[in-house]
């Protein structure tokens, strides 16, 4: 059964622990601690307390009637992770890992962030649990997401601007790993997606599976059946993995991951790792990567900073190869259109990341029967993106006027 992976730290041939030796004892201790607490009723009770009382779970499963009518096909439901405290699904994972770190006796937490959502999620968890947080962020992203930088600082977290390499998420992860190597005895590295060495991809998936579990329970309660399809965006792939996992062994449910097609796969300016990448090793895992002929990891592009990553979670790589999940891409233009459409039709401003999933779900709905149900994981809210979208629309308007 697919849900029984990872086996020996691997999802088929993907995953593993490609790490410098200094980190090996820390990763082993984490694996042991997670093994101990994942089924510990006391730990689960504490996590559940924070998820419900503090973060606002369960999140609603909302029937998007107007969007459905506009698409003209299958019913589209939105799993409202945008309503979770912090404004994105990230809080599910940061609370889980921060509670684990606390039980492991670690007081210093480090994390990486791209758009800033995981950084904010980490800052929130550190603040409420009394831990000290430091977040690495590429200097380009610091510039693009000033508001999130201030939010993290306001929550008491220190933000380190990273100037190396492409100055985005990939380099923020490199720098966080370097910090971890240097301070391994005191520090917990709180990874924000289903990436990195084992046990991170499994552990983050488990913490995010609360999304899929709630969808499953609610569908069975309301309709007595499972949905036809689940659609979620994929950067590293944590909201998608959390949505897919509880359905892996239900072959009737189609699982669709939507990657960032940027300016189009043919232009090379995209972040569609599973659609256009090849196998390799990055950030401690064997997985699909965007790389050049020599094996150098290449710069990626997406209008959404949260999807701007040249790797992807190893479990997605396995699901692609065995064809259990389908992976497609959606361009910047299409995502922006979906961002606007959902705002106008439903009064919900989605994150640009989630807009990729909305766009593809609308395309799919048109081809499906009216009694079928598509679930879209609305991974985050779009307040952080309004400025980017405003600039994008102004630029696009000018370009179209010239034509």
């Amino acid at each position, binding site marked *: 059964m697919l849900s029984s992976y990872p086996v020996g730290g691997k999802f088929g041939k993907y995953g*593993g*622990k*490609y*790490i*410098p*030796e*200094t980190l*090996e*004892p820390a990763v082993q201790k984490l694996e042991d601690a997670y093994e101990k607490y994942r089924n510990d009723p006391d730990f689960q009770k504490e996590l559940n307390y924070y998820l419900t009382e503090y973060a606002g779970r369960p999140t609603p499963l909302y029937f998007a009637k107007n969007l459905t009518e506009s698409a003209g096909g299958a019913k589209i439901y939105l799993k409202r992770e945008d309503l979770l405290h912090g404004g994105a699904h990230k809080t599910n994972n940061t609370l889980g890992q921060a509670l684990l770190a606390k039980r492991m006796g670690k007081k210093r937490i480090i994390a990486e962030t791209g758009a800033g959502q995981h950084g904010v999620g980490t800052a929130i968890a550190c603040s409420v649990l009394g831990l000290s947080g430091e977040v690495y962020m590429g200097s380009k992203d610091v510039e693009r997401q000033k508001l999130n930088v201030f939010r993290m600082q306001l929550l008491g977290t220190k933000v380190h601007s990273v100037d*190396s*390499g492409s100055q985005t998420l*990939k*380099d923020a992860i*490199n720098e966080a*790993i*370097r910090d971890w*190597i*240097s*301070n*391994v*005895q005191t520090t917990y590295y709180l990874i924000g997606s289903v990436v990195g060495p084992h046990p991170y991809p499994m552990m983050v998936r488990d913490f995010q599976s609360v999304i899929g579990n709630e969808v499953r329970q609610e569908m069975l309660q309301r309709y007595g059946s499972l949905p036809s399809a689940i659609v979620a965006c994929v950067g590293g792939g944590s909201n998608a993995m959390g949505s897919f996992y509880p359905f892996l062994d239900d072959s009737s449910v189609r699982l669709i991951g939507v990657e960032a097609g940027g300016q189009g796969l043919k232009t090379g300016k995209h972040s569609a790792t599973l659609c256009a990448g*090849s*196998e*390799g*090793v*990055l*950030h*401690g895992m*064997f997985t699909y*990567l965007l*790389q050049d002929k*020599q*094996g*150098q*990891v*290449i710069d990626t592009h997406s209008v959404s900073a949260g999807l701007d990553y040249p790797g992807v979670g190893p479990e997605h790589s396995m699901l692609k190869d065995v064809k259990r999940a389908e992976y497609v891409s959606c361009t910047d233009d299409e995502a922006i259109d979906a961002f606007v459409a959902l705002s106008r039709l439903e009064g919900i401003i989605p994150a640009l990341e989630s807009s990729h999933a909305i766009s593809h779900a609308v395309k799919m709905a048109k081809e499906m029967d009216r009694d079928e149900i598509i679930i879209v994981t609305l991974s985050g809210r779009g307040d952080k993106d309004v400025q980017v979208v405003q600039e994008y629309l102004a630029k696009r308007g000018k370009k179209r006027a010239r034509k």
Partner: protein
Amino acid sequence: MAGRKEAALVCYVVAGYPDMKATEEAVDLLVAGGADIIELGIPFSDPIADGPTIQQASNAALQAGVTPEKAMQLAKRIRKKHPALPILFMTYSNILVHAGFEQFLEKSKQSGVDGFILPDMPVEEAGQYSALAEKQGLATVFLASPNTSKERLQKIIDRSSGFMYLVSVFGITGARKSFEGYTQDAIKRSKKLAAGKLPVGVGFGISKPEHARFMVGAGADAIIVGSAIVNKISNGKTAELKALAASLKKACRK
């Protein structure tokens, strides 16, 4: 290397930084100064075990168009000039994984290198790599750290050939001011387990003769110097490499 009266000096340079000719020149000077082994770095886009000095040099080399292929051509030229000099490639796993281990190791062998150091390749993941390297007669140098358990140290020693690379500190590469007692403890622990099987090389942070003496005093069979050399090259002081190597080599003599 083990049991000799003096410790070996291992010197690291980034292939093609600032250009191929300069790297060749740097190697000549280091060898003239007393370097016993050359570590030739093949630049990788995401060098997670490296500090700012080597990151910046690797990045500049990539910008200048250095490829693994060109690094192999450089190794060939160095081999021709220094027929008995041990040369090791140091790079990250993805460079080999992407090209395919078999092909990459075979081509490396043809270019005259003697082995590999891969800082993100732990023994657990090394099955195919080790087997194919052995087939080609290439050394596989695995790394250990001050916090590596006795059981793992044993595995690392069993899997390593050439020497075992003990990382001196909790940290990444880059010149340091001083070292603490735990480094000496780690050297002693490794030496005890490796005795009679494999020499123990110590690297990361070593930039001065006094550092070398500190490591050799604790029993190191080799000291490995990288960032201090790359710093000289970055600052346009390549001409001083011979004197740097000579001073480090002097400190290697027990």
